[in-house]
């Protein structure tokens, strides 16, 4: 039982670590690039866009989608490594 608890504890820590990294990226591209730094980034051009404006109305959304798929793939691996994957349920 305590071995199992320990395993679950490590799983939870790995999960939280991944989550915090991805949320840091989430915050940086949206609130960072799209809002706080938008004026500074607007001095650069990017495919006909001002860079800050592009992050705010296009780039951040693309990154959001990628973040969820990265999370899904990484978690699948973490689930398996810690023996808690739901694939064995079937």
């Amino acid at each position, binding site marked *: 039982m305590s071995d199992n608890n320990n395993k*679950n504890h490590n*799983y*939870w820590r790995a*999960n939280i670590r991944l*989550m915090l990294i*991805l*949320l840091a990226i*989430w915050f940086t591209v*949206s*609130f960072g690039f*799209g*809002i*706080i730094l*938008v004026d500074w980034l*607007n001095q650069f051009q*990017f*495919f*006909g*866009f*001002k860079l800050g*404006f*592009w992050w*705010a*109305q*296009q780039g*951040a*959304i*693309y990154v*959001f*989608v990628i*973040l*969820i*798929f990265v*999370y*899904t793939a990484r*978690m*699948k691996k973490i*689930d398996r490594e810690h*023996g*808690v*994957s*739901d*694939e*064995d*349920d079937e």
Partner: protein
Amino acid sequence: MDAQTLTYIFVFLTFSLYIGIAIWSRASSTNEFYVAGGGVHPVANGMATAADWMSAASFISMAGIIAFMGYDGTVYLMGWTGGYVILALLLAPYLRKFGEFTVPDFIGTRYYSSAARIVAVISLIAISFTYIAGQMRGVGIVFSQFLDIPITWGVIVGMAVVFMYAVLGGMKGITYTQVAQYCVLIFAYLVPAIFISILITGVPIPQLGLGATVVDGSGLSVLDKLDATLVDLGFTPYTDGSKSKMDVFAITMALMIGTAGLPHVIVRFFTVPKVSDARRSAGYALLFIALLYTTAPAVGAFARLNFVDTVHNTTYTDIPNWFKSWEDIGLIGWHDKNADGRIQYHPGAPFEGKPTYDEDRRADGSRNVTNKITASQNEVYVDRDIMVLANPEIAALPAWVIALVAAGGLAAALSTAAGLLLVISTSVSHDLIKMTFARGISDKQELLAARIAAATAIVIAGYFGIYPFGFVAQVVAFAFGLAAASLFPAILLGIFDKRMNNAGAIAGMVSGLTFTLYYIVYFKFVAPDLNSAAHWWFGISPEGIGMLGAILNFVVAFVVSRSTSEVPGHVLDLIENIRIPKGVEKPHEH
């Protein structure tokens, strides 16, 4: 064939499709009625979530709002997509593992308290009803606009269709009609966007067209030309905002965490078979949503450019027909202030309120505005909601595209309305009747109660659609603030904070909800004349106050939980259990 006949055909065909699906996917148990038996494929659930999520506001209003707000429109683009990252990483997988039927179910069980469950039900109903009234109104507007029947009849037809598949099919019926509705609405959104992008820039992908060079030989990109044109007319540049950074930050955050706390979105993740499917499904949902949300800023910018090019300095006799037909129903208005016979477009309101006319027409055939005229140079009133609906006409696209947009607008409004109705009826039949007032009832009785609750909710929503409060449109945006300040923190803490107890969660929800509601009601209804940056707390508008409400909820919940009794052992076991993907109950096959 003309646009009207085509619209009838398109709407008839799509409605038949929805009803056909509803009959095919009838629900036979509460499990199927509430969560579609938990057997929906993650991609199908992603599409259903996208249709559920994208309402009449996303489809009809958003691009128009962005067209007139420019950079400030970012709050909606990021706010209504970024929430899915939070949902996927922080809520959806754990709630799927929990595996009951409703959001109040989770809160009631996790906080071992029927008081907590009832607070959650109250929040849920307040959030969902404010949201749904706007949807029924959207159905009515599309019907009356394109099919030339009174708004009342439009709402009744919409109610009848939703009744068919929500009451018969429950979650199962709704899920598969939403998949069809997503396909209709995204096709209807992208086709005109692609046409217009090709017309303006020669680039067939709107997301790239927004940054491409305009084909008028000026050599400027779309955004540069728009900036230059608007500055010429006295506006601030399109790519600059006029809201303060603090307010943009707060509104974006409130919309994001509000999205993650909306019950009709959360409940969609109860319908997939496994925890890993819930994660994947959130990714697909956002992908399908992003397709529309990254197109919208392009549609907005093209529409603004087209509008200025077509309207500014044009004589009334040369103006295209769409201008006159929208003028007739009061969504566009013109008063020739300098009497030069030409329409001038500048910042500021041209006159006070929405246009009203007398019976006379001037020599050029234009209407006589009877509103009080303002001192600004601007002569044109334009309602933001018409931009998406009028876009195909402004760009002179073929009649079938106009018909397609009407069918798409209806799909967007109906799918969201159905999703909201389902969570309302579920929380009444399951959380109030089954779990609180009549614990002994059988599955059959509960299913009947769910159907009666859904039918009642449709009638109430339809009533609000026909007789709207003047403030419905404003209130819809506040549903997010309420969700952000009440349900989101309670669910998040329930998963991640093992020491969060019943007293903490209830105190947090009540204080977050009360504070947010008070702030909104004060500035919108009690003292609307004080509703300006000078009087706001920390410069945060009522739209963004949900962020402070959520922080208050977190702080109160933390302090109260640390000074009251500990969480009982069986709840600690529950928390351990939902944190592990393994061991989900087997789903029902479809």
